[in-house]
């Protein structure tokens, strides 16, 4: 009896082809979207609505746009280099999957997280003593607790899996 998987149904087959095509042009889309945000961000500051409220939104969009443009352009340039030099791509794949490099990266991230716990906590305390508005301080505390709880959750999950 034939198993009906999504791709064997014509409607979903064309959807999958669309997704594959999107993946191929993903970096072009990200670069273009970044450029639109960089240009569109300052343009928003001329609109009255954004001049009165959400004053920071145009600058936030510029920041996000720069990040997206940099990432997309970087990926496109890297792919171009890899097309010309497949041996570089192969070596980079090896370095990325090298167990010693992965171990070193994980240890460095763990140490950085430990320091961040103290530094972020100290910054929140300093903000509290400086009289920064309670909404901002409480938001920072909520974010801080979310990160710490996420770390504990992952530890418990890994204890069960491994």
């Amino acid at each position, binding site marked *: 009896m034939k198993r009906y998987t999504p791709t064997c149904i014509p409607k979903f087959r064309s959807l999958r082809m669309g997704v594959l095509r999107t993946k191929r042009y993903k970096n072009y889309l990200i670069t273009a979207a970044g450029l639109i945000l960089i240009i569109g961000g300052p343009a928003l500051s001329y609109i009255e609505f954004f001049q009165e409220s959400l004053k920071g939104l145009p600058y936030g969009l510029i920041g996000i746009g720069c990040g997206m443009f940099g990432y997309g352009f970087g990926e496109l340039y890297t792919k171009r280099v890899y097309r010309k030099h497949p041996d570089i791509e192969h070596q980079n794949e*090896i*370095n990325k999957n*090298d*167990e*010693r*490099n992965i171990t070193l990266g994980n240890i460095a991230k763990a140490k950085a997280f430990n320091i961040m716990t103290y530094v972020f906590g100290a910054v929140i305390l300093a903000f509290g003593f400086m009289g920064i508005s309670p909404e901002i301080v409480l938001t920072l505390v909520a974010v801080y607790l979310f990160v710490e709880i996420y770390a504990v959750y992952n530890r418990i999950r890994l204890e069960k899996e491994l």
Partner: protein
Amino acid sequence: MKNRLEEIRKQRGINQEELAAALEVSRQTIGSLENGRYNPSIILAFKIARFFGTTIEQIFIYEEETK
């Protein structure tokens, strides 16, 4: 962990880059393995032993730490 990786590698006339390419690890990993600064995972240890056609115990020497 002490090992005879460098000795066996040189006996076969292979350099670190060639061994790294064969095992699909970086050259720095081979270097760290040889001077005992890094201990391989069990899978990498098996790959190394299989590459040289020998056993893990003949390459890596396990000595219990005495406190």
